[in-house]
């Protein structure tokens, strides 16, 4: 037993060494950390510039970032980048890990190139925390100013020892109620500098508490639903439904409109308006809510964006909320890319609502056209995908696929593009116009068939005879009119003859008149016979018409003869005019009688 214990102890030590120093075995050390805590808005933005040096034996491929346990639920965004000589926008990949025995959240940052032993590296970290500034007092009257408390850490919470670090806190105003004094900090105007701390052990925490005045707008979007509807006819419709609330100190007591209007610092922490920046090609922007259009807004179209100055119906004081919808149209050629049957949509997952925005819960719905298949979504960061839904709207038969995704706790850094790939058969575009055409076709077809159906139970012979007679009469009328047209044509020929003195034309005209007249007369006689067969008395009238027509033809022939004689010089002009007048008078009278007879038909 006594001999075994040292062995056991040695094993345990080795184990402990292996486990406990998983971190320090890396040998990484922060040489210098410059931390800036920006508390000028309602978010806490912590940026740190660190100089990382590898004191260990082997090259390091990654390093680990830490966040205090109290701040973890409020973490909205964390990012790291390596500072090189040139402009770097290469953000490094972060992966969440845990370290045994230590509270808080840890992120493993993958270095672009491994850090050799003894080398140094400059990195930049960014963290944004939402809802960490607590208003204190939590209820204020309209005349008071808003004071908030921030509780953080004097040191940077890191798994590696830090040789030297400074923390600089930027506040929203000069007025500070109290701030924790560790190591003799210096304060000038809005900036508090916590002096260089040397050789701080890893995982060390020391509460930093600042109670200061912050009148910046404390707006939070408690819920936003963003709907993007894609149409292949060239339009993308975006609509956002936003629930907005003021999360600063709650208003206690009355709201006096008089004080608010007359005194400039009354209700200083309230929100009157904010600017929403929409994509540059946004058109038909509307801003409305459940009870109608909101008229208090201004739209300004700039070169690279469209700015909407959104003024809610009433100013938002602490604890007050409002709800509105804002929507616009975008041309699809800017966001929808196609190659054959493959389509790709590149749109922002969430867009700008106001500067330094905080979204508690986001739901994104992307509605793709009917018939989209093989849908894939590439998101820039992790989001929760809900099962696809179907959306039915105009001219839809089997519904449009809807991609639904949600995420909570977003800030401005989350305004990034999402790519959606899908296949769509171009023939399916015809479905919509064909549906409309088909609907009208069926309607007209039905009506056409319906009016030709005869649901009479008994046959009415008198009605049938009447219908037959009516049809025959119609034919007679057309033929008579054609005949009268012939006479007019003859008149034209005569006139032309008088001008051109072309006997040949006159003769040919006469001949055609004779021929057509004979044809028509024969047809009318046959119809007359049919009418008589039906036993109608209209046959007599038709006979009358035939007789009168014969006289009219006579007159027409006479007038053409007169014209011939005039041209030949056989008759004088005045005499000709006289005779013409009488002839035409007679003709008119006859035609009048024919008309009256036709009316009686």
């Amino acid at each position, binding site marked *: 037993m006594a001999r075994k214990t040292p062995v056991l102890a040695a094993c345990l030590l080795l184990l402990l060494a292996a486990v406990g120093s998983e971190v320090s075995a890396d040998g990484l050390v922060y040489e210098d950390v410059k931390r800036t805590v920006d508390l000028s808005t309602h978010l806490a933005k912590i940026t740190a510039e660190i100089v990382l040096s590898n004191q260990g034996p082997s090259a390091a491929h990654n390093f680990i970032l830490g966040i205090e346990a109290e701040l973890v639920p409020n973490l909205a965004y964390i990012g790291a980048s390596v500072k090189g000589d040139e402009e770097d926008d290469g953000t490094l990949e972060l992966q969440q890990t845990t370290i045994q025995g230590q509270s808080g959240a840890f992120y493993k940052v993958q270095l672009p190139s491994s850090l050799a032993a003894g080398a140094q590296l400059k990195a930049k970290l960014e963290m944004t925390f939402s809802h960490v500034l607590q208003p204190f007092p939590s209820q204020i009257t309209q005349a008071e100013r808003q004071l908030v408390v921030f509780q953080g850490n004097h040191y940077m919470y890191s798994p590696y020892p830090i040789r030297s670090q400074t923390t600089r806190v930027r506040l929203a105003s000069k007025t500070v109620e109290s701030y924790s004094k560790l190591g003799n900090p210096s304060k000038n105007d809005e900036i508090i500098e916590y002096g260089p701390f040397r050789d701080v052990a890893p995982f060390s925490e020391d509460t930093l508490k600042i109670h200061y005045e912050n009148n910046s707008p404390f707006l939070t979007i408690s819920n936003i639903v963003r709907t993007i509807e894609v149409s292949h006819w060239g339009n993308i419709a975006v609509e956002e439904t936003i629930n907005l609330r003021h999360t600063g100190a709650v208003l206690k*007591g*009355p*709201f*006096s*409109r*008089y004080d608010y209007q*007359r005194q400039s610092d009354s209700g200083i922490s309230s929100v009157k308006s904010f600017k929403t920046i929409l994509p540059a090609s946004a058109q038909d922007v509307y801003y409305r*809510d*459940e*009870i*109608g259009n*909101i*008229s*208090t807004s201004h739209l300004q179209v700039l070169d690279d964006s469209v700015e909407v100055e959104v003024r809610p*119906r*009433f100013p938002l004081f602490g*604890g*007050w*909320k*409002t*709800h509105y919808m804002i929507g616009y149209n975008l041309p699809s050629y800017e966001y929808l890319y196609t190659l054959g049957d493959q389509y790709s949509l590149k749109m922002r997952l969430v867009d700008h609502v106001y500067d330094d925005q905080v979204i508690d819960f986001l739901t994104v719905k992307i509605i793709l056209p009917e018939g989209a298949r093989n849908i894939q979504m590439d998101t820039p960061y992790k989001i929760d995908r809900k099962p696809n839904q179907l959306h039915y709207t105009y001219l839809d038969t089997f519904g449009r696929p809807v991609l639904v995704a949600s995420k909570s706790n977003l800030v401005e850094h989350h305004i990034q593009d999402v790519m959606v790939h899908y296949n769509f058969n171009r023939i399916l575009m015809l479905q919509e116009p064909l549906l409309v055409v088909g609907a009208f076709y069926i309607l007209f077809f039905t009506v056409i068939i319906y009016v030709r159906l005869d649901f009479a139970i008994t046959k009415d012979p008198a009605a049938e005879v009447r219908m037959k007679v009516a049809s025959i009469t119609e034919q007679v*009328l*057309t033929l008579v*009119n054609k005949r*009268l*047209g012939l*006479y*007019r044509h003859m*008149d*034209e020929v005569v*006139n032309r003859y*008088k*001008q051109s003195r072309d006997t040949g034309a006159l003769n040919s005209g006469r001949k055609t008149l004779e021929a057509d007249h004979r044809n028509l007369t024969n047809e009318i006689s046959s119809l007359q016979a049919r009418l008589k067969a039906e036993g109608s008395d209209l046959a007599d009238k038709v006979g009358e018409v035939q007789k009168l027509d014969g006289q009219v033809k006579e007159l027409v022939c006479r007038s053409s003869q007169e014209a011939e004689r005039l041209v030949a010089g056989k008759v004088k*002009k005045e005499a*000709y*005019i006289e005779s*013409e*007048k009488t002839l*035409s008078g007679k*003709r*008119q009278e006859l*035609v*009048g009688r024919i*008309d*009256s007879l*036709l*009316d009686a038909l």
Partner: protein
Amino acid sequence: MVRLMLTLTPVVCMLSAVAFSSVFEHYMGDDTKREKPPAEDSSDEDDKRNSGNLYDKAGKVRKHVSEQEKAEEGLGPNIKSIVTMLMLMLLMMFAVHCTWVTSNAYSSPSVVLASYNNDGTRNILDDFREAYYWLRQNTEENARVMSWWDYGYQIAGMANRTTLVDNNTWNNSHIALVGKAMSSNESAAYQIMRSLDVDYVLIIFGGVIGYSGDDINKFLWMVRIAEGEHPKDIRESDYFTPQGEFRVDKAGSPTLLNCLMYKMSYYRFGEMQLDFRTPPGFDRTRNAEIGNKDIKFKHLEEAFTSEHWLVRIYKVKKLENREPLEHKLRSVVSRQKFTSKKTAKRKRGHIKNKLALRKGKKLQKK
């Protein structure tokens, strides 16, 4: 009320149709030859005309004839077409005019007010919807709102809150209660409001923008309706000056200057100076400087006022936990020092004629 003119529409339409149709008939129809209705083919008509007139043929001989026949007709084609064109243009411009008039005069929503500046730009006053939306978003779901019945449906529709009386209330006594609350002084009104369990009171005040349909102008009706049900408490004559005028300035009746409606309308208004020419507290609708400028509330608190002071919402405060007494406690003054008349034998708890007991000795009976 302008829209009531539209009830004349059918009559006017029929009369104008008769007029237009007779004009068109006269100027478009060929009225010399035909007396019958036009049932024939158009070619027949043409042929008849041509066989008679033949004025469109270009023969030298014929021209003479055609002029003669034109004179016979009575109306030249030029006059016909001019008159027809004129009538058609009149009709088309009337359609345009109707559209404009409907959009301007017959379509004012009366929830959104619009005013026009000197340069023609339009200024929209959306106070009603602002206040109703505030009520909808920032009050509890089951809050009860007291207002005059004109706004009942608007509150129910836009603000989505319970009202006491609305446009369809047939219960005149209930409306009279609301009227009584508006016309009484604050303490009496507070009792009524507590009994009706009211959370918010909403009034319309047009004194800042000169809106003439506000509650002070309707106030006398509230008084009359209340007087009908509670003649002993509310008397209409109390609200007039001794000369019989309804005035809101210093000469107004004190009952009016202290009633709840007056106080709610003019709370903090006395400090407001709209124009440098007029004194502070000048009511634009009544054109008078208000009489009671220093208004304080005991049971109400201003919850919201819209941008142009058109809608004012007050919150009814709950009773205090401890009400300070209005009178001093009665103090009891003692005249003389009190001496007790109790001797040893007459002290409380002392038993009279108690038998003395000695051990070893027999008790002697008395």
